[in-house]
């Protein structure tokens, strides 16, 4: 979509409808295991789904059209919204759920641009923003700037928060370098924890601006005012994923070339926060309960069926709460409808959902217990999250940082260790984002008769969570800013995360002379993973081979990859796909046929000459070494490839004779079974050649 030149006359301005986009998917998995089963925006904060806060704020700003972009769990989001007041006739804005297969904010933006839904400037927020900031002034400033210059493509709304604030992201210290005269953001960088706080401000910036502010005291809650031009920018650069590191950084870098500017609007009244980590969840809940987000407090009863009443000490109780006479519920707690608390129990600083049953002599401190949970007698719960319908037995001890997911049952007398994540579901490996499957109960974790198992995460995420509870500010977390994770396949994922790390970093320290060879190697690794993932994905969904090919081509161009890399990626993807099919119960022969036959064109496109064919087979062989039934698969693949003329005799022979294909014992073993095919094919081709030669001679 070409960015439409907006008419800036006043009368037109007045007629323009204010649109907003809610990015409902977080594209990250900081809320595991809860986000396995529910999208983040439907998690409850102080007993209200997060998206309600976002919608409420948008309504209060006067937005008239809202698009909800969702990648993961779209059905749940849609069902929820369809039953909410936002889709009723009386809703203050029209709401539409935009389904997309996006795996990052960038994808979602590009999708939006393609659909051409946005007519003018619009507000872009995440589905987990809690805010009450007045917005008129920001919009006005933005519009005034737009009238002056069409190049002002975006305004970021930031909240001032002092150096340390519980609601501020402690570990990604975001630095904004701002020209106070024009409010232009001239440089953006994230300072990593435990690195020296050194910014790398381009020289021109210092030259061009008389005065600059460097601010690190801002809460960036992802509220942006976009213009259609900004959306077009997203489309132009299809590898951008994150709105800050990629988009803002990218646009600012290209300032010299295109002259596009990004502005900031700094708010110093009102409340704005994003619930993007568990730590933020904790902090924001505290803010809401102690009324910083007023009027969005529980006792405002924003949802029609709520009936909270405020009592002294920020204690909120809904109707029908049953408290035993000897129980104590002290300050900063929220108790949902029909929750009952037994004799002698003590609840401090905790949020308890609806219809929960808390037994006798239970101690609950700083915990979050969602709807319909049960807690047995004499149990102690410290700073933990107990999700819906979970049940904790008698005499249990749930230690700090434990996360107990939906429907988990913990048997009597079990101690849940610190920072354990217990769930009943796990993500299916190497499959679509939404697919989860039931895991095997681990009695060591949940006790005899319990249900659930421990979900282990990467080291860094573990840290992330610890951070939430301990409130430690010195973190050694290595995931990136808005950390992307597309939930795909396990082992590759980790490597990807690690390899991604340094590249994006080098992106922000552009002028640092980097180790060239290391860089390229990493780039290769990155390309390989991305490409093979996307091909594999395409194969899995049985997409049109042309489509896959196109995507591959695009990736190749962005990364400037070489042909052999593509072959490797294709080979690995096919081998994965086949292995995947075999796991699904097919025989090796069937699997090979299903995987390869419809996608011949894909292979043909990347293997043309004999040398290339040999290389392709070599990659395949290498990959099959560690797959189940590798040798059989190789046999069938070779057979099919040869049979369908994707590989000819020369290619096979070259592969067979290549010393690399017999470099190790394993490789030899894998290819052993393929011997007859090679022999036959090689023979045939020789015959062919002979014949041809003969005919030539004649």
């Amino acid at each position, binding site marked *: 979509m070409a960015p439409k030149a907006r008419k800036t006359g006043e009368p037109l301005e007045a007629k323009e409808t204010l649109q907003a986009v809610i990015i409902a998917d977080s594209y990250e998995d900081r809320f595991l295991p809860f986000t396995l089963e529910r999208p983040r925006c439907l998690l409850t904060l102080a007993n209200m789904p997060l998206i309600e806060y976002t919608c409420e704020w948008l309504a209060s700003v006067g937005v008239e059209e809202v698009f909800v972009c969702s990648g993961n769990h779209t059905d749940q989001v849609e069902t929820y919204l369809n039953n909410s007041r936002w889709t009723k006739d009386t809703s*203050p804005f029209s709401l539409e759920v935009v389904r997309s297969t996006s795996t990052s904010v960038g994808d979602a933006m590009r999708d939006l641009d393609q659909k051409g839904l946005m007519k003018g400037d619009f507000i872009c927020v995440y589905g987990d923003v809690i805010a009450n900031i007045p917005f008129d002034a920001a919009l006005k400033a933005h519009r005034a700037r737009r009238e002056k210059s069409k190049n002002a493509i975006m305004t970021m709304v930031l909240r001032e928060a002092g150096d340390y604030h519980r609601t501020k992201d402690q570990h990604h210290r975001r630095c904004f370098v701002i020209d106070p005269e024009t409010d232009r953001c001239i440089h953006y960088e994230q300072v990593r924890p435990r690195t020296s706080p050194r910014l790398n401000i381009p020289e021109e910036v210092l030259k061009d601006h008389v005065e600059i502010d460097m601010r690190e005291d801002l809460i960036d809650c992802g509220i942006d005012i976009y213009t259609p031009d900004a959306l077009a920018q997203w489309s132009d650069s299809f590898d951008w994923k994150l709105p800050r590191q990629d988009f803002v950084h990218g646009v600012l870098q290209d300032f010299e070339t295109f002259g596009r500017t990004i502005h900031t609007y700094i708010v110093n009244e009102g409340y704005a926060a994003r619930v993007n980590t568990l730590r933020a969840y904790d902090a924001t809940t505290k803010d809401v309960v102690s009324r910083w987000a007023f009027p969005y407090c529980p006792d405002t009863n924003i949802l029609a069926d709520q009936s909270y009443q405020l009592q002294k000490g920020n204690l909120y109780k809904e109707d029908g709460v049953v408290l035993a006479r000897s129980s104590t519920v002290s300050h900063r707690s929220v108790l949902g409808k029909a929750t009952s608390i037994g004799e002698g129990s003590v609840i401090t600083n905790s949020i308890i959902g609806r219809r929960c049953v808390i037994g006798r002599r239970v101690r609950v401190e700083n915990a979050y217990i969602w709807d319909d949970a049960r807690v047995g007698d004499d149990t102690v719960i410290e700073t933990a999250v107990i999700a819906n319908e979970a049940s904790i037995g008698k005499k249990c001890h749930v230690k700090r940082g434990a996360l107990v997911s939906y429907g988990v049952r913990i048997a009597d007398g079990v101690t849940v260790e610190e920072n354990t994540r217990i769930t009943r579901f796990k993500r299916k490996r190497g499959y679509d984002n939404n697919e989860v499957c039931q895991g095997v109960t681990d009695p060591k974790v949940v006790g005899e008769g319990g249900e659930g198992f421990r979900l282990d995460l990467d080291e860094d995420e573990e840290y992330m969570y610890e951070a939430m509870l301990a409130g430690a500010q010195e973190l050694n977390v290595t995931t990136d800013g808005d950390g992307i994770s597309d939930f795909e396949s396990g082992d590759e994922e980790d490597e990807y995360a690690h390899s991604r790390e340094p590249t994006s970093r080098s992106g922000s320290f552009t002028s640092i002379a980097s180790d060239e060879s290391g860089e390229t190697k990493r780039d290769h690794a990155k390309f390989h993973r991305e490409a093979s993932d996307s091909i594999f994905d395409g194969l899995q969904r049985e997409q049109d081979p042309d489509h896959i090919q196109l995507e591959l081509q695009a990736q190749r161009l962005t990364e400037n990859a070489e042909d052999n890399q593509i072959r490797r990626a294709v080979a690995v993807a096919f081998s994965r796909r086949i292995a995947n099919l075999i796991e699904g119960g097919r025989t090796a022969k069937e699997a090979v046929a299903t995987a390869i036959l419809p996608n011949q064109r894909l292979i043909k496109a990347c293997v043309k000459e004999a040398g290339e064919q040999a290389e392709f087979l070599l990659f395949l062989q290498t990959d099959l070494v560690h797959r189940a039934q590798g040798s059989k698969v190789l046999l069938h693949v070779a057979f099919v490839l040869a049979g369908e003329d994707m590989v000819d005799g020369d290619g096979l022979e070259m592969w067979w004779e290549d010393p690399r294909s017999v470099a190790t014992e394993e490789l030899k073993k894998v290819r052993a079974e393929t011997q007859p095919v090679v022999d036959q094919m090689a023979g045939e081709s020789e015959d062919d050649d002979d014949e041809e030669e003969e005919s030539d001679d004649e």
Partner: protein
Amino acid sequence: MPSSMVGQTPSLTGFLKSLKQNDIENSIELFISLLKRRQIKNSRPCAIATTHLLLRVVAEPKRKWDAQKLIARVRNVGRRLIAAQPREMAVGNIVRRVLGVIREVAERDEDPLTDSEFSGSASPITEEFQRPALPTRFSEFSPLHGAAAMPHNMHSGRPGTADSVSMDLGGTPQRPALLSTNASYAGQGPPGTSLFSILQHPQGRSPVATPPPGTQSPVTGPSPSRRAIGGEIPEKLDIKAEVIDGIKELQDELDVVDNQIAESALDHIHSNEIILTHTSSQTVQKFLLTAARKRKFTLFHAEAYPNNHEATHVTILNGAQGEDDSDERWKPLTSLGITVILIPDSAVFAPMSRINKVILAPHAVLANGSLLAAAGASTIALAAKTHHVPVVVLSGVYKLSPVYPFDTDELIEYGDPSKVVPFEEAEFTDKVDIVNPLYDWVDCDLVDLYITNLGGHAPSYLYRIVADHYRVEDIDLNAKLDAVAKKG
């Protein structure tokens, strides 16, 4: 979709504009969310918005109302509005007033004996203050006490059976007991003859003060001759039009209420007095301005930090501005030669000994004569009490609520703590709970005089004004519906 609020924060003005285009259900929802988001707040804007909304509800096109349906509808809408923000009592007050108007129209309609003379003074606003119809029962004014708790024995000596039937239809299952509660209030009840019969035959009783339908018996009706005239005009009144007129009169009342209160300014403010006031109230400003035209006095102005101090400062410097976003500005008091001294709330005790009069503007006035006002009012009232300084409260009748303050904590709203301690002070706010109450409750014995648009009253007299303006059956909007539900 509210199309007139393009790209701007919704507000009272936006809401009033959007009323014309939106359909009714949308408007109701919009008003509810505005109340919840506190985008319409304070008594006057709430009252204005409520009258406009109810006007739309009543005037709903293509809808023929009969009185009972209309009552049920308004009651239902009212209940939702009150539930949205129970602490804005003006909303509930206006709903009850409108219900009163409807009931009255309905009664006239059902009883053709009532003649036009009555309809002339139909509105509760225009009526002169007259003798209250019935002894009031305080304890039932609270929504906490449902009608179910009342004994039902007061049908005795009431001949109008037809009326009582209609009353039942009106969702009034039992007329709450008059005497028994009266007795409980007074401690000793005169057996239902003497006082009651006197009250049963008031002269020139105002229609608003009419006791609920059951008492509209022929005995209390107008003279036989009138009855004959009335009988000749059996034509039914157009309820809709009548009610709309009634609501419009309510709106007029809201427009002129400040002027009416200001009219009595010269009776209360004398030359060379020292007056203390609080907050940027429009009513108080108008009152003082009227006095300032004739007399010179000194004003101490407490700034009402942290929720209202900015408005107060602006008022002192530039004059008051209408709360309903109008551009109208009045001259500041200083321009009329009045000395205005701005003091922080905490300093009110020191000058109190020199002050002649304290003038307060309430957020809401409760049935027993106590009031809710911007935080800081309680300190001022207590300081005034200590120094025996009279406290005068200026309040339109629309702020007068039939709610009885059983739990004063519940009535007070707590606002955003960032006004007290800035959000940036994180290290501090982490460790302390900060509360920012928006209102203070001031007990009735701290107030000496109420000045309403009807004149001046002692706090102990307010219950009679309440009885004049609100029908007993409308006081508890929730309980009645339950009763109806039970019956149905």
